[in-house]
């Protein structure tokens, strides 16, 4: 187990460097430059800029210099936000996105698991139909539509909550709800399907034949197997939280990493893009590793060697 974790941790670094390379190739493959969007520059100035950023060197030298710095954890400074280091920008904006993302997943997990379990136990009941229809709605309403509607109702209509910006805990409610909706829906559906599958299995019949009450059957025997699909969903979910936070950050005017990333992409701010991509890919791989470890803890049949 320990060597498995160690091996997986070690492989993260070359994988992240590969991702950085692919991203670099993608950026360089696109026509144009970070300075070219404004207007056509006089050749002398353009040559100056190219020299300043090392763009006059052959591409493989540029690549090697970039990689050399990246390996040391140095992504250089942003082209757009002059003089600010990429690392500083990431660390300054990350807390906002991380808070919203983490809270959203937590809320989604709690509500989704509860709704899914109850729906499975009371299959074909009003609760089942109601919660599953709501979940389907959650999957079908784009979050940039849901967010403004929530604002319209709870902030502008009822004045319960602030409509936007980063403030006290009450300012977190709407962004977190907006972001969590789709994950809540997914988790509820996965949990319900997983629980139904497990509740039909032979070992649940055995547990009932032992005379255990339904609560024990559910909590002690069914739950573990039932939430395995939720665990495997967590990896991709955390990865896709980024796209979700972009919308939420935009709708609620929150200075998070998602918006910074989109801006960086639009500005072709190469160092910043590479920094964020590297950071995110490492994060995603760590989460995937955690998911695999959770698998092993959950299911004794899985052994990592």
């Amino acid at each position: 187990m320990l060597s498995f974790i160690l091996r997986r941790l070690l492989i993260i670094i070359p994988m992240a460097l590969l991702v950085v390379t692919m991203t670099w190739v993608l950026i360089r493959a696109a026509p144009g430059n970070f300075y070219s969007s404004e207007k056509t520059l006089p050749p002398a100035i353009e040559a100056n800029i190219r020299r300043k950023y090392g763009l006059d060197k052959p591409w493989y030298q540029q690549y090697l210099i970039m990689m050399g710095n990246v390996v040391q954890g140095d992504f250089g400074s942003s082209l757009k936000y002059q003089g600010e280091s990429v690392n500083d920008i990431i660390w300054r904006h990350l807390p906002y996105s991380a808070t919203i993302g983490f809270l959203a997943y937590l809320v989604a997990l709690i509500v989704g698991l509860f709704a899914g379990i109850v729906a499975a136990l009371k299959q074909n009941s009003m609760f089942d139909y109601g919660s599953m229809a709501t979940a389907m709605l959650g999957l079908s309403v784009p979050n940039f539509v849901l967010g403004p509607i929530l604002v319209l109702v709870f902030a502008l209509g009822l004045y319960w909550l602030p409509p936007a910006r980063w403030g006290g805990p009450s300012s977190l409610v709407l962004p977190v709800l907006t972001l969590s909706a789709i994950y809540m829906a997914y988790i509820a559906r996965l949990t319900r399907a997983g629980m139904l599958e497990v509740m039909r299995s032979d070992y649940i019949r055995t547990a009932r034949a032992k005379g255990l009450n339904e609560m024990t059957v559910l909590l002690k025997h069914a739950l573990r197997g039932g939430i395995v699909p939720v665990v495997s969903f967590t990896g991709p979910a955390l990865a896709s939280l980024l796209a979700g936070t972009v919308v939420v950050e935009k709708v609620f005017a929150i200075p998070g990493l998602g918006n910074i990333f989109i801006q960086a992409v639009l500005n072709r701010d190469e160092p910043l893009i590479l920094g964020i991509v590297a950071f995110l890919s490492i994060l995603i791989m760590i989460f995937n590793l955690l998911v695999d470890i959770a698998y092993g803890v959950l299911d004794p049949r899985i052994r990592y060697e």
Partner: protein
Amino acid sequence: MVEKTEQIKGTSLWRDAWRRLLKNRLAVFGMIVLALMILLVAIGPIVIRLTTGITADYVPSQVDEGDLVRSFPPSLKHPMGTDEAGRDLFARVLQGGRISLMVGLISTLVSLLVGVSYGAIAGYLGGRIDNIMMRIVDMIYAIPYILIVIVLLSIFGGPNTPAFIASLSETFGGAGNQGLSQIFLLFFSLGLISWLTMARVVRGQILSLKNEEFVLAAKALGVSTFGIIFRHLVPNALGPVIVYATLTVPSIMLSEAFLSFLGMGVQAPYASWGSLAADGIKNISIFPWQLIFPGVTMALTLFSLNFLGDGLRDALDPQTRKF
């Protein structure tokens, strides 16, 4: 509990699935709504134009050059109200529906083509090739897809538009229609980032199928590797592929809406439900209908697609309900 000996024959499998699908009320609801939506989107704009003379670009006569407010609430003449520029929102929603549905359809086809081939080849060849191919998939997963789409759009946009996309947009919108070819480019770009999960699904299917006897029989008969993969294995993995494709359509439509929301998707004068809703958000507190109508239309369509996908999964795969 009831042990049944079921005889499964080639054709009756599909007929059975169809029968089960028709018994699923929600799936039938989804199918009906979708059919209506397609019909409405296809002939709606023409009917509106012929009966009232209103088109998606039509600006009502009561609007003057200098008017500051051109947004009108829903009325008999404009059932969904008008947008910021005073254009009839109903006509625009129908027009936008064409593009949104096309995005879902074409991009899914593209992702199907790439994902099925990639997954089938990886699964069938197995071993080191499979390993490398799947690690590549993992890696692409780790790159935010928005970056890939933007790069694809900018590499192949403008003068670099691939010939087949240019000819497609020529067929539909006349020569040199840059906006339309940008939309077609968007279709392909979205397709090209949505095949990853499909590849995994297909690979899993192929892995479990490739040691079956019918594959051995085909091998013994000297069928080529290509033939085994695409004529023998892929048709047998069709069930999960169809199910997953049905669920890919709404997710791609959401991606398109997301890109349009960020201003990177469908550009004016063209519109999609996503871009219309994104426009509506700006004025949500004063002209809420500008968000609500396109948003609800889109949600209803996605809702139906999801129900249909769910129903198909239950119908094609009644034993294992996994996702």
